[in-house]
C-alpha cells in the first residue's frame, strides 16, 4: 500500500513537471512570457527566413529585440508602433522577440537572429555589449542599437534628444503648479534620467524662477506599486505637479486621486486621467526605422550614431491634458518652435548645479556628449545625487 502510494505520487509528480514545462512553453510562445519564450519566435523566424541568409537587395529581413512586451503602453509600445509603420511603408514583415532580459540571454537571442536576418534592432541600453559581441561575429549583418554609445563597422546607434520634450513639459509644469513645488519620479540615477530631470527643471524655471523640484529614485523601470508609493511620498511632501520617468501610469493615477497634475514618459498617457494629465515626452520611431531599413535595401547603410530630436520628429510631446489652459499650451508651442528652429537650446549657460558650482558658463552650450554623460543635478533640484 505504502509503496504503491509512493509510486503513484512519484508518477504524478513527474506528470506534473511535464505539464508545467508544457504549460510554460505553450504560454510563453503565445504570450511571449519570459526568457524561455524568446527562443520560440526566433526559431520560427529562422524557418521562415529559409536559405537566403545573405542580404538579398530587395526585401531585407528585419528583426527587433524588445526589453518589454509591446503592450506595455510605454517604451516598447512606441518601438512596436515604429516597427508597424516601417512594415506598412516598405511592405516587409519584421520579426520581433519581446521580453528579452539584458544579459547572456540577450546575446543568445541576438546571435540566433543574426543568423537569419539582414538587420537587427536592439532597443534597450543594456543590450550594448551583447550587440557589439554579436556584431563582431556576423560582419555581413547590420546592427542598430538604441541609446548606447559603442559602435562597430556593422553596428550603429540611435536615440533622440528627449530632454527637449522634458524641457517643454517643465514649462507646462512650471505654469500649472500653485505651490511652486514639482515632483519627479526617477527610475535610476543614470545620465538618461538625470538629463531629463535637469531639462524638466530648467524648463519650469524658465517660466517660474522660484520653482523647486523634489526627486525620488525607485530603482525600477516598471513596478506600479513602488511607483505609486514614490508618487504619494512626493504628493505628501507638498508637490502638486509630478512627472514620472517610469513605464507605468501609476503616478498619474496617484495624482488623480489627490487632484494634482502629472505626466508619464515615452507614450501618450492622457487616457489614464484626462483631467489630471499634463503632457510628457513621447517617442516616434517610425520614420527612423523606415529610413534605416530603406538604406539597407538601397545598400547605402552606414554605421552612424544617429541622434533624433524635435526637428525630425523622433522626439515629440504628447497631447495636453484637458485642464491645461490655452495660454500655457501656447507658451509651450512657442518654445517648441524655438527648439525646432535651433534658437533655443536646453543646456545653454549659465547653469549651476545644486551644490553651488557653476557647470555651464553664460553663453556656452553643452555638447551632446556632455549631455549624455551628465552626472550632476541643476540648481533647484533638491537633494544630492545618490552615489
Amino acid at each position, binding site marked *: 500500500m505504502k509503496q504503491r502510494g509512493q509510486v503513484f505520487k512519484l508518477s504524478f509528480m513527474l506528470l506534473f513537471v511535464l505539464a508545467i514545462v508544457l504549460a510554460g512553453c505553450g504560454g510563453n510562445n503565445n504570450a511571449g512570457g519570459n526568457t524561455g519564450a524568446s527562443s520560440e519566435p526566433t526559431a520560427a523566424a529562422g524557418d521562415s527566413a529559409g536559405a537566403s541568409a545573405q542580404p538579398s537587395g530587395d526585401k531585407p529581413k528585419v528583426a527587433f529585440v524588445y526589453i518589454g512586451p509591446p503592450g506595455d503602453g510605454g517604451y516598447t509600445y512606441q518601438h512596436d508602433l515604429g516597427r508597424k509603420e516601417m512594415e506598412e511603408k516598405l511592405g516587409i514583415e519584421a520579426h520581433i522577440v519581446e521580453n528579452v532580459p539584458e544579459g547572456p540571454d540577450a546575446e543568445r537571442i541576438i546571435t540566433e537572429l543574426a543568423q537569419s536576418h539582414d538587420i537587427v534592432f536592439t532597443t534597450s541600453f543594456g543590450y550594448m555589449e551583447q550587440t557589439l559581441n554579436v556584431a563582431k561575429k556576423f560582419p555581413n549583418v547590420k546592427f542598430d542599437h538604441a541609446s548606447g554609445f559603442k559602435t562597430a563597422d556593422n553596428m550603429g546607434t540611435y536615440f533622440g534628444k528627449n530632454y527637449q520634450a522634458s524641457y517643454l513639459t517643465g514649462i507646462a509644469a512650471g505654469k500649472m503648479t500653485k505651490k511652486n513645488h514639482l515632483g519627479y519620479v526617477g527610475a535610476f540615477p543614470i545620465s538618461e534620467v538625470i538629463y531629463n530631470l535637469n531639462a524638466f527643471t530648467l524648463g519650469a524655471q524658465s517660466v517660474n524662477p522660484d520653482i523647486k523640484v523634489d526627486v525620488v529614485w525607485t530603482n525600477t523601470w516598471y513596478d506600479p506599486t513602488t511607483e505609486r508609493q514614490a508618487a504619494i511620498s512626493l504628493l505628501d511632501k507638498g508637490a502638486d505637479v509630478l512627472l514620472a520617468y517610469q513605464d*507605468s501610469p*501609476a503616478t498619474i493615477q496617484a495624482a488623480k*486621486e489627490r487632484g494634482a497634475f502629472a505626466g508619464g514618459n515615452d507614450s501618450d498617457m492622457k487616457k489614464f486621467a484626462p483631467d489630471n494629465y499634463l503632457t510628457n515626452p513621447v517617442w516616434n520611431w517610425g520614420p527612423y526605422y523606415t529610413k534605416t531599413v530603406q538604406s539597407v535595401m538601397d545598400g547605402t547603410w552606414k554605421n552612424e550614431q544617429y541622434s533624433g530630436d524635435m526637428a525630425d520628429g523622433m522626439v515629440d510631446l504628447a497631447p495636453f491634458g484637458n485642464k491645461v489652459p490655452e495660454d500655457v499650451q501656447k507658451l509651450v508651442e512657442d518654445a517648441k518652435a524655438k527648439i525646432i528652429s535651433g534658437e533655443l537650446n536646453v543646456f545653454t549657460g549659465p547653469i549651476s548645479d545644486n551644490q553651488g558650482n557653476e557647470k555651464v558658463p553664460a553663453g556656452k552650450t553643452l555638447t551632446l556628449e556632455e549631455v549624455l554623460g551628465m552626472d550632476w543635478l541643476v540648481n533647484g533640484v533638491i537633494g544630492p545625487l545618490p552615489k
Partner: protein
Amino acid sequence: MDFVTQLLIAAISAGTPLLLATLGGILNERAGIIQLGAEGLMLMGAVTTCVVFLRTGNLGVALLATLGVTALLGLIHAFLSITLRANQTMSGLAMTLFGSGLSAYLGKSISGNPLPSSLPRLDLSFLKPIPVIGDIFGNLDVLTWFSIVLVVVLHLLIHRTSWGLHLRAVGDSPATADVMGVHVRLIRYGYVTVGAMLIGLGGADMVLTVAPTWNEGLTGGRGWIAVGLVIFARWNPVRALLCAYFFGALDSLGFRMQLLGSAIPPYFLKMIPYIVTILVLMYLGYRNRNKPSGTPESLGVPYVREQRF
C-alpha cells in the same frame, strides 16, 4: 497631516493587497495545505478583473469573475494536493508559473487600456474631527474595509467557533479530526478554494488601486512577499494585518527618507524591508524559542485515511 499619519495612510494602501493575499494563504495553510501559488493567483486575479471590467464595464461582475477564476485555480491546487496527494510545493510553484504565463497571454489584448474606474470609496466624513483616525479611516475604498472586517471575522472564526476548531484540527492532526467525524477532505477543499479566492482578490485590489491598467508582471513579486508574510504572521489574521501594513509602510518609508534629504543611497533604502524582516524574525525566534511555532502540525502532509506515516 503629520509624517506618521501620512505614512500610515500609505502603509494601508500598499498593505491591503498583501493583507488579502496573506489571509488567503493563512486559510490554506491552517487547513494543512502549503500555498506557494500566490504570485500566479494574484496575477490571474488582476488580469481577470481587468478583462471582465473592460468588457462589461461593471466592477461587481469583474470581481465575481475574479473570484470564480481563482476558485477554479484553487480547486486545481486542492485536487492535486488533496486527492492526488501530489507534492504541494511543486503544485504551488506550478500555479505561480502557470498563472504568470497565462495572465500575460490573456491580458495581451487589453494591455495598456485604462480601466473605466477605480474602487468606490466609503466617505465617512463624520470621522474627520477625530485627529489621526479621521484622516486614516475617513476615505478608504471598499476592498480595504472588506479586508479589515475580514481580519476580525477570520480571527473570530479560527479562534472562537467550532468551525475554526475543525479547521485547526484538520491542519494539525487530520487523523484525529477524522476520528472525531470531521470531513477532512471537504474542509481542506473548501479552505484551499476560499484561500485562492482571497489571494486573487489581492491581485484585483492591486490593479484597481495602483495602476489603472493591466500589464504583465504587474504584481512585481508581491505574491512571494505574501507567502512570507503568512509565516511572518505565524498563521494569525490579526498579526497578518500588522505585518502587511508594516511591509506597506516599509515600501513607502524609503522614498520618504529620500525626501527628508537623507544621504543613505536608495539602493540601501530598498534593502530595508528585507533587513527588517531578518531582524524581526531573529527577535521573534529568540523570544518564542521555547514556545510552539504556530505552524500547523500537518502542513504539507497529505492525509490518507488508515495510512501511517
